[in-house]
């Protein structure tokens, strides 16, 4: 465990130094990549480990975003570090609480039904946040700028997102090595067999669900701070749910780095390479999804793995 952690730390330090040499636009692209990667990895904790594919994870982004925005009075006066921690903290807590509330009934469903149920949860919450004025979803809420004076705003959020991504990766690595992770793999392979063998499937699923929700909500809070003004539509977006899944798939569902790689690749594609293709970027994203699913079902990691294996074989048998 120590060696991978050290390598991770080294990579993080390198990434943290990048804003000092990159221009603000590239820092923002990096920020987008970290947010997307973090969200995809948070989704993966449930979807990749346990194969419970949630199509409504944007609900936690939204809940986290609004929790941070509406809890303003708790943290608005204070040091910027406190503001960040309390804002993200309240987002994580509220998301976890909502997840805990719905976990048991929702996780009783399997397969497609769980997928649609999460979508339904997302839709209900989005409508509720708009319909009930107490949430201010329809009119929108502003968040104050919490970047410390003197620091460039995009750098601040870049570092905050990087830090949160690091936390998420560490949590994912810990889960993968713990009984929780092995239990989730068992659920993924054959849930009924796991139950019969005594694996506490319900408890493990609920735990993974709550962790996934809390992390997603935290990124939702950062997303909201970065935007500065949110309405229901800006954070309860079906597109965000689908992006999380596409990123995990494109990167590869076999490793916790799959979602990260997929997020980086797709963000680079849509925000940079296609930024000037005014009309067709949606169609191209769709084509990429189709091509990846058919031609590279193990994702980019799978493609690279296959290529390396082929090279090795070719080397031995000329």
């Amino acid at each position, binding site marked *: 465990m120590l060696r991978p952690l050290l390598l991770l730390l080294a990579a993080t330090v390198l990434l943290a130094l990048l804003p000092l040499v990159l221009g603000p636009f590239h820092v923002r692209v990096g920020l987008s990549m970290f947010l997307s990667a973090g969200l995809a990895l948070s989704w993966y904790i449930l979807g990749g480990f346990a194969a419970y594919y949630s199509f409504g994870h944007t609900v936690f982004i939204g809940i986290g975003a609004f929790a941070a925005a509406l809890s303003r009075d708790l943290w608005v006066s204070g040091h910027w570090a406190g503001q960040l921690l309390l804002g993200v903290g309240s987002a994580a807590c509220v998301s976890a609480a909502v997840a805990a509330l719905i976990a048991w009934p929702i996780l009783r469903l399997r397969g497609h039904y769980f997928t649609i149920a999460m979508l339904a949860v997302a839709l209900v919450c989005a409508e509720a946040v*708009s319909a009930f004025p107490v949430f201010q979803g329809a009119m929108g809420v502003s968040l104050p700028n919490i970047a410390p004076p003197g620091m460039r705003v995009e750098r601040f959020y870049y570092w905050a997102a990087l830090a949160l991504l690091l936390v998420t990766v560490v949590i994912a690595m810990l889960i993968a090595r713990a009984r929780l992770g092995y239990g989730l793999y068992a659920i993924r392979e054959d849930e009924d067999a796991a139950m019969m063998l005594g694996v506490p499937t319900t408890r493990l699923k609920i735990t993974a669900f709550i962790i996934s929700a809390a992390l997603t909500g935290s990124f939702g809070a950062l997303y909201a701070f970065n935007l500065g003004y949110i309405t229901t539509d800006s954070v309860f977006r079906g597109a965000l749910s689908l992006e999380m*899944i596409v990123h995990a798939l494109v990167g590869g569902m076999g490793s916790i780095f799959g979602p990260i790689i997929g997020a980086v690749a797709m963000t680079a594609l849509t925000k940079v390479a296609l930024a000037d293709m005014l*009309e067709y970027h949606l169609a191209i994203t*769709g084509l990429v999804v189709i091509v990846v699913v058919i031609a590279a079902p193990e994702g980019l990691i799978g493609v690279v793995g296959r290529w390396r294996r082929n090279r090795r074989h070719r080397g031995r048998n000329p």
Partner: protein
Amino acid sequence: MSTFIQTVVNGVLFGGILSIAAVGFSLIFGVMNVINLAHGVFVIGGAYAALVAWSTLGIDPLLALPVIMALGYVLGSQFQRHVMQPAVRRGNPVAALLVTFGFALVVVNLLTVWFSSAVRNISPSYAFVNLRLGDLSIDAVRLVCFGIGLVMIAALSLFMRRSRLGRVIRATAQSELGARLCGVDSKGVYAATFGVGSAFGAASGVLIGMMLPFTPAEETLWTVYAFIVVTLGGVGSPAGAMLGGVLMGVAATLTQTYLGAVYTNMVMFLILLLMLLVRPHGILGSAFRASR
């Protein structure tokens, strides 16, 4: 009291629209156990096809309906055979879902480029005819579409029960291996089923285009409405789609009138959620498999 009756009548007519839109989705879900995220684009695509027929070619949408259904069938079955089947073969359970999602993105983008996202509607000469039954006001177009929808759903039901292809589809749905052992080309059956589902989706789009304003972005909503109808009424059976649609429609109009218009969608999605938790196969259950 008359308000209540008017609300219920409006609900039934609106529900008819929902049923028609869901019947194709129900078939695909029931037979192939695939959530077709591209369902909405077939619906909206049908609406745009009818728009082209009406505004550019001057053909009444109802006359163009059979042609549009045929186009839907061809597009759907070819997509299933050449894109979905390779995806499913990869083994990933979400694969089929994701390629339908990718396909939906492509089609929505193309529709937006060709037609712009201006709000459109089709208004044939009889679009504003109004019928009165005492105090009740009934929109003639909705009534006609409701009637056509009923006919279509009944035709699908008959097709599934009596025709050879219908029986083959049902057999494959109940047991793919068993059907193949009996000599059925299951791949062909799946392609045909997807085609039929898409054809009905497109047909519903033609009717919806005559009743409601539409844009390319609506397609997500119609896919979601299809989920709700199917989850409520029952998977795989046209009768289930009919029941689910009418119940949803009445629930929507009752919410609008007595609770507040702003809660309409929320109540509809809440019903979906509750049904999933309590009885996911719907009131009438799954037509092809054992229900919980």
